[in-house]
């Protein structure tokens, strides 16, 4: 059964990957033989979603609970929500180019999920509730739609900047794309080290307990006041170069911080190699894919993503969250960091909607806001757990 589950996960990954490639081919293609390819692209992504559902079902059968209880399961589900939201929006607008950007992002997200421990853990008492999947899945579905909105916004920016009409935005757009490259770089590095079984561990004091922190990447930064237990060599590098500051208190904060540094380093190296070969900006590389699109349509898709996601996010991340928090922690709202950041995300999209609907912020401004909103979601996912140990520390 476990083998079946793992194979389904690999199957999902491969289907998303192939679908991403076909979408890119469709987007670059000039005219002919496109109909078959177009159909193939969308069929592959739908097949990916189906296999992804099958994967989740086997995981429910094995684990006895819905797979949204740790970081791997949540990010994998977020990837599922992203592809699902894409398929819904694709059904409305039939823009293949959107797939050429969304599907690669889905591949990266799934790879990023795979970096975290994949074993099924039993549910601690705090998570034993039906709200675990009701709350988390609804919130994630909303975030998936926000992600599609962000991608459409990015395409809009690439279109406008690539056309050479908005030179002032070029720098910021390139920086945004480099951050994406860092996410890719981190996933690649982690999966490679995982494949070769790299291991390092440190022992240190957390709230008067001796804790062993495991590293899957060579340590650049060690936990605060820690001792190395075992550090594999990597190209005769052993490290660490320095220690994490004492205020990084979250669960496994130092190893996550180490991962962030790896992401930045690998991302920049990848980008440098790319620049050395291609000698042009990333957005210039991507511009030919989007050249033929109608900017007004992209703007509408980006807004549609928010319009679909906002009610779902409100329901999942605020209302259901409050109902569950009231059952589990005895109060509907407690300003736990994760709660606060869900509130911030919601307020941000509220501001987006008012700026757009009432102040007429469309086009470039709206596109940047759509990108910014998803950046806040990713911050909540990656950074908040790094620094702060709140009640949501298991994710």
């Amino acid at each position, binding site marked *: 059964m476990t083998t079946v589950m793992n194979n389904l996960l690999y199957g999902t990954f491969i289907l998303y990957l192939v679908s991403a490639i076909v979408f890119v081919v469709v987007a670059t293609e000039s005219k002919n033989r496109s109909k078959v390819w177009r159909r193939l692209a969308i069929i592959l992504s739908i097949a990916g979603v189906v296999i992804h559902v099958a994967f989740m079902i086997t995981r429910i059968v094995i684990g006895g609970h819905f797979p949204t209880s740790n970081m791997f399961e949540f990010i994998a589900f977020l990837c599922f929500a992203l592809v699902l939201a894409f398929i819904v929006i694709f059904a409305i607008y039939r823009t293949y180019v959107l797939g050429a950007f969304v599907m690669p992002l889905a591949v990266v997200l799934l790879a990023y999920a795979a970096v975290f421990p994949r074993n099924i853990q039993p549910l601690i008492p705090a998570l034993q509730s039906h709200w675990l999947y009701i709350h988390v899945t609804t919130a994630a579905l909303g975030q998936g739609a926000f992600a599609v909105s962000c991608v459409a916004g990015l395409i809009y920016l690439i279109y406008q900047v690539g056309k050479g009409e908005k030179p002032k935005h070029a720098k910021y757009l390139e920086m945004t794309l480099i951050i994406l490259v860092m996410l890719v770089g981190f996933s690649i590095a982690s999966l490679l080290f995982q494949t070769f079984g790299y291991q390092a561990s440190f022992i240190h004091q957390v*709230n008067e307990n001796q804790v062993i922190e495991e590293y899957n990447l060579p340590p650049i930064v060690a936990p605060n006041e820690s001792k190395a237990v075992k550090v594999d060599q990597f190209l005769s590098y052993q490290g660490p170069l320095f220690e994490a500051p004492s205020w990084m208190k979250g669960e496994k904060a130092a190893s996550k911080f180490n991962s962030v540094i790896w992401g930045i380093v690998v991302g920049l190296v990848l980008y440098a190699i790319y620049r050395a070969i291609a000698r042009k900006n990333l957005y210039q590389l991507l511009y030919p894919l989007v050249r033929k699109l109608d900017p007004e349509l992209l703007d509408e898709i980006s807004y549609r993503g928010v319009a679909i996601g906002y009610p779902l996010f409100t329901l999942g991340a605020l*209302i259901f969250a409050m109902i569950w928090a009231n059952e589990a*922690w005895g109060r509907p709202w407690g300003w736990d960091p994760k709660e606060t950041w869900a509130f911030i995300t919601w307020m941000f999209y509220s*501001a987006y909607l008012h700026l757009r609907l009432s102040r007429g912020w469309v086009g470039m401004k709206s596109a940047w806001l759509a990108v910014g909103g998803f950046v806040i979601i990713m911050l909540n996912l990656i950074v908040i757990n790094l620094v702060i140990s709140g009640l949501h520390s298991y994710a």
Partner: protein
Amino acid sequence: MIENTKCECGHNNPLGTVLCEHCGRPLDEISDSKEKIDKEMRYEGKARRSLTYQTSIMDQVWNFFSSVKIAIVLIIITLIMSGIGTIFPQEQFIPSSSPDTYYEQTYGTLGKWFYQLGFSDMYSSWWFATLMSMIGISLVICSLDRVIPLYRALKNQKVAKSTVFIERQRISLKENMLEDVPAKIDDLADKLAAKRYHVRREGNTLLAEKGRFSRWGPYINHIGLIIFLVGILLRYLPGWNLDDYVWVQEGQTVRVPQTHYYVKNEGSSIEYYKSTEKSNKGPIVSKYRTKAVLYQKDSAGKLIPLTKKTILVNDPLNYQGLKLYQSDFRSGDLTGIKFSLIDRKTKKNLGVFSVNLSQISESQIYKVGDLRVKIKDYYPDFAIENNVPVTKSQDPNQPAFLFETIEKGKTKGENSLVISGMNFPNPKSNKYDIGLAGFDMVNTAGLMVRVEKSLPIYLIGGIISMIGLVMGFYWQHRRVWIRVQDRILYLGAHTNKNWFALRRELSQIGFSHLVKEIEK
């Protein structure tokens, strides 16, 4: 400000009107402009109070809060402040009761500033509450300022609109008509009705409309949010909510703090998952469980049971809004010690007696066979200071007892000192030895005590909000105006969002060139 509010069509509009109520012609400019009137269409070009009256203080306050710009600024300030509040943990989450020193010691200078600027207890501060209230006021006034004129405008729509109004819609076209005019309009009306438009006709003009209710979505959402905020405000009423904590040992009955109820712990337990080989963190807890009984005292002071429940995490006891939550668990609290009495000569165990640590008194006599044992002295946390036995605290960390064992018929007996964890040499003349025979341990449950009377209000607010959001976001208000004048067909169309779908719909009723090349 617009001086002339009389339209070319002869209609007299209220002061502040942007688009003529009757024919839709823009009033504030010379009418040969070709610019689209998307912005003006947002509130149907109606006069809004905030744009019309601007003199008295009341007007100024109204105008301040009716501005969406101000609302957005308030939202952005709130979200930035909320973000700053998560840089370090809030006071309620720190493992210290003196935040004035904790933040500086733990986080350095930044921590000191964090505390001194009041960010460490931000979400319950007066200024955060002020921000939230201002957002609440803004919600009410912004909504009223817009929804009333919008409602009036949409309710009293005229079918015939001026060609200027039609031509300046974002989607518009002009076609020369060769065929029979009434027949063509009949045909278009049928096709639009088939697309579930509500069609109204007046001579050679036509208005088709659908999904108008979605325009009320945002306002319904705002009503829900206001109800929600009222729920938060009500928490400032005394007795509206309660947040306390109580520890109950197994077998104990204690008063629920700040209430007239009592709770008894009939047993607390912890369960673990079967250990798996992979888990190296030790066993994982599967359940914390407390069997609780809630009592109330009657007039005679007798405890009357009210309700009984096995409390689990995620499954609290709920009695008329008073909730008890399983929050913490402590195992192995020492409540009693068992001792055995041994005859020194024969090494025979004469029997066991049990001392309940919460009921120690000099008059208490423990009977073992023919013998009686009395406690002459008790040191819960035994230590020797200056050759004198003392107790360091009242917690039974190292309990020690001075017993007197009295034989039958005698009034005085022999003394023996028993110290847990030590083998104290009692006098050789003693006939009996007293040794530790075991501990009585119980589990203790930490229960959160909560009352939150606003819960139903939050729920109602949340439900209304969601209804509004779904109405507003998953439907859209579409309108099509058609007018034939001098054998020219004018068509204009407007939607509050999702223009692509509207274009596609129009292309399906015969205006295919409204769909842009790229979208085909």
